[in-house]
């Protein structure tokens, strides 16, 4: 927690068990990358050295749903693929969170055809929507930080049986987009 440097080695501290568990969970969110399209490339870029998802404790991509906490749906989901996605979601252990990454996973995007699911939130409980086509790695980091804020917050909505309800947070861009097309100056001004 960063406290060990400031405290004597033989001292102890008191905290709430809830906060300790939340701190452990938020610091080791292991994603299950369900990357089916170009959003998966941005997801790989987010995990690699330039953007370094390891800073948030989420660098361990687990390709086994039993070992992962966060399902990142990155890319369009064909109707034939949906049973696979749902089974992977069912195989994940509680507590689990879902990020719908990009326009295609959230709404179907430009693929408004008979074979493509128009938003995985129709069939899965999605917690955080990350917009973009594809989203920049900063945007996905913001989404994972939103998941961490959700874990941190005390008032996580639970249903009667102790299962967590979906939060359905939509991310706002964390940067100012330049007006497009950007002005270009040629030669000496």
């Amino acid at each position: 927690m960063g406290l060990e440097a400031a405290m004597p080695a033989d001292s102890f501290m008191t905290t709430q068990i809830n906060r300790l568990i939340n701190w452990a969970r938020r610091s080791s969110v292991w994603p299950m990358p369900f990357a089916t399209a170009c959003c998966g490339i941005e997801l790989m870029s987010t995990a690699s050295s330039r953007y370094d998802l390891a800073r948030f404790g989420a660098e361990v991509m687990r390709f086994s749903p039993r070992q992962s906490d966060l399902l990142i749906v990155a890319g369009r989901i064909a109707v034939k693929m949906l049973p696979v996605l749902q089974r992977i979601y069912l195989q994940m252990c509680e507590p689990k969170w879902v990020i719908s990454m990009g326009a295609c996973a959230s709404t179907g995007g430009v693929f408004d055809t008979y074979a493509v699911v128009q938003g995985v939130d129709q069939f899965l409980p999605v917690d955080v929507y990350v917009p973009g086509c594809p989203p920049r790695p900063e945007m996905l980091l913001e989404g994972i930080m939103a998941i961490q804020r959700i874990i941190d917050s005390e008032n996580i909505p639970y249903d009667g049986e102790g299962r967590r309800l979906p939060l359905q947070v939509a991310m706002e861009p964390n940067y100012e987009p330049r007006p497009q097309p950007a002005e270009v100056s040629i030669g000496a001004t």
Partner: protein
Amino acid sequence: MPSSDHPTLPLVKASFSSLTLTATLFRGQTTLIVPAENVHAIMRFLRDDPECDYDLLSDVVGIDYLKYPAETQGRFAVVYLLASYNHNRRLAVKVFLDPTLDTSGIEPDPALELETVTDIWPGAEWPEREVYDMFGIRFRNHPDLRRILMWKDFPAHPLRKDYPLRGRGERENYRVLDRESS
């Protein structure tokens, strides 16, 4: 109208003199149009004759000509794209088919049937499955005629032009997982 000087056409004409075969030329590419019941014999000839020697079937594709602006010889067409490595030559063979049943369903239509060419080119197996999946054109004696892209119970052939682009509810009709049930 320029006449095709494709060297295969006289050979086919000499061997199948009893049939009325036509050919079209578009931007230097020759298409031979054959009757549906003679496809297999003509394909066998095109592969086995040493002057033709089309040893590669590069693709089998289907076409739906519904509401085509020009007049066509049939509603559907199946095109076989052939290539000969030895002669460095290409030829397209086209078959027109007319359905007798309503094309919105998936019931087998005896008019939309062709003899398979998988015994001539084994690589035709998957393209023919795709044509069957997308257009509902069945291939007799095919070793494994199942859908290849859509799932088994899909209730239509989606590349037919009378099938709506957004489907008939197949993408919405699925079970929903929520936090209560999962």
